């Protein structure tokens, strides 16, 4: 469906994308995962023909994006990072414009609009001006625009940013539905989102693909082991003897530390929790455990490790086309993104601070005067 070969994008001296290659098969949901500024948006912009690559090749359905851009673009529905909406139009007018521009006419157009309005739950908002819609509903209009012509490939750049938790669940469900008969590529820096929706994950960091596999394989490959780190006082040989026979242990490494201590790292398969066994074995062998740390390898850890600073030292700066999030930390906590509350919800919450203020006011006269009675 999509073949990307050796994509390179330079902004002046800065390389935002450095030799990215991958193939996208029909009927799967692909997740593009990476920290801010990793080159996700740039890659997606290049696939959709919005940006031109410095080097490399993109073929969509056999059409080269440079040789036959119209053929390639008509197979793709695209939601950019910032939904490209005209604030002075209503969603319905806007969708009519996009549909016509993509070649839908008459009945076909209105049927398509009705379908996407229903799918994205725009319903009663379809006839309000886009500038009066909340961020979440604008995002929905953006998604509606991308799926309007029922394209074979749907590319969504961070589709759930700015949505409230309920909307996120709805949109994920929608994406899952779309994945049944479309090829979907979505990008996110939120791991849970990718693992909740995608079949195949492409992890990208500093403009390079660092891992690319199905979700199960990735999990299997990296999640296979748990680790226990111990600091013990004792002899290396007796430590090994004590641990080796515990079922589930796969690997032991022992480093001597100062003051006659040993640092022991035990790798086990993910199903086994051997902490209690370890405790009793060492107790029997009269080797005191000074510290024990248990480390579970999750996909999140894998992600952090793959995209972390140690992988490469070049600082990644968000390219100028993208949104102004220039922070590049290498660590991206999965739940960092707390969705903003919907503007409509605010008026309902307003009385609370007011009440508090009132309460505070009456209490101000004398801190010890009880509010009731007295």
């Amino acid at each position, binding site marked *: 469906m999509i073949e990307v070969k050796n994509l390179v994008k330079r902004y002046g001296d800065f390389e935002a994308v450095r030799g990215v290659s991958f193939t996208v098969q029909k009927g799967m949901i692909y997740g593009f995962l990476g920290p801010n500024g990793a080159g996700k948006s740039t890659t997606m912009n290049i696939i959709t023909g919005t940006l031109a690559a410095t080097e490399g090749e993109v073929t969509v359905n056999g059409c080269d994006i440079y040789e036959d851009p119209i053929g390639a673009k008509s197979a793709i529905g695209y939601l950019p990072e910032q939904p490209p909406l005209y604030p*002075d139009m209503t969603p319905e007018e806007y969708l009519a414009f996009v549909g*016509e521009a993509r070649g839908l006419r008459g009945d076909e157009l209105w049927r398509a609009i009705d379908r996407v309005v229903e799918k994205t739950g725009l319903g009663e908002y379809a006839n309000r001006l886009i500038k009066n819609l909340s961020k979440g509903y604008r995002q929905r209009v953006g998604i509606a625009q991308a799926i309007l012509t029922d394209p074979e490939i749907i590319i969504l750049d961070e589709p759930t940013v700015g949505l409230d938790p309920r909307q996120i669940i709805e949109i994920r469900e929608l994406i899952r539905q779309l994945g049944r008969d479309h090829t979907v590529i979505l990008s996110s820096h939120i791991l849970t989102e990718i693992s909740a929706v995608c079949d195949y994950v492409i992890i990208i960091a500093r403009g390079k693909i660092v891992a690319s596999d199905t979700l199960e394989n990735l999990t299997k490959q990296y999640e296979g082991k748990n680790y226990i780190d111990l600091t013990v006082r004792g002899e290396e040989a007796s430590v090994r003897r004590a641990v080796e026979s515990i079922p589930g242990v796969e690997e032991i490494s022992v480093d001597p530390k100062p003051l006659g201590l040993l640092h022991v790292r035990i790798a086990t398969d993910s199903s086994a929790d051997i902490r209690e066994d370890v405790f009793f074995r060492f107790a029997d062998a009269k080797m005191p455990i000074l510290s024990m740390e248990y480390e579970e390898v999750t996909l999140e850890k894998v992600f952090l490790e793959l995209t972390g600073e140690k992988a490469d030292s070049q600082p990644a700066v968000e390219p100028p086309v993208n949104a102004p999030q220039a922070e590049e930390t290498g660590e991206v906590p999965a739940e960092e993104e707390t969705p903003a509350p919907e503007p409509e919800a605010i008026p309902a919450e307003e009385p609370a601070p007011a009440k508090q203020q009132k309460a505070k006011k009456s209490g101000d006269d004398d801190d010890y005067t009880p509010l009731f009675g007295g």
Partner: protein
Amino acid sequence: MSAVYKKELRTHLNGMTGAIVVAFLLLMVGIYTIVYNLRGMYPSFETTVSAASFLYVLAIPVLTMRSVAEEKHTKTDQLLYSLPMSMTQIVLAKYFAMVTILAIPCGVICFYPLILGSFGNVRYTTAYAMILAFFLLGAALIAIGMFLSSLTESQVIAAVVCLAVLLLLNFMSGLATLIPASAPASLAGFLILALLAAVIVRIMTKNTTVAVSVGVILAAAMVLVYAIDASLYENAVPRLLSATALFERLNPFAQGLFDVTALVCYLSTAALFVFLTVQSMEKKRWN
């Protein structure tokens, strides 16, 4: 293409810019007509329209300022880039939408000679030839305004720069007479232009070697031509400047002449700046 055209037309009409431009042009041309033809009893409608062409300096920037700049500002250009259409189609659709807005007041103005005809003799052919030239001048200026709008993300900058450029074009023939006409002065003028060309090449390619060589080659060619035949440079810069005086080209029409070269000049200016707008949009993808 028709979808973008319809959307643009609706944006202009809903977003007031179109309505303001139409209302402004009609109001002002109406005032000119009353002052020149009805009050002043002047029989030539051509002169009225020729004088009214100055209004474009104010009207065109308002019409064109948001055409591309606003798309860039709100990032809706990303949608345009991802549509299965060529950039030429999109730019042409935008251009024709603005020309359509301009056609509204021009269409209404077509009734004025008829109205004047009921008070006396009006030379209809020359009057309508003038309105045609007036319309095409506007079309050429819209292309310039659209190009300037495609260079920036800010409507305000687009409007101000467009206003300055149109004002300059309007005064160009006057300015041209201020510039010394001697051959050495013209050579100096052309050398400055060569330097400017080199600077533009440097900005666009970010390649100093290419820019310097372009500048040096241009300068050398000019000096060479000067050495061979200095008389070629007599009056060259003033002539070049007056060639860009688009407003001045209405003068023959005001005298009752049908000047085809002026119409060709307007059409080719429009084509050139539509082309440049397409290039400017394409360039953004390659940044």
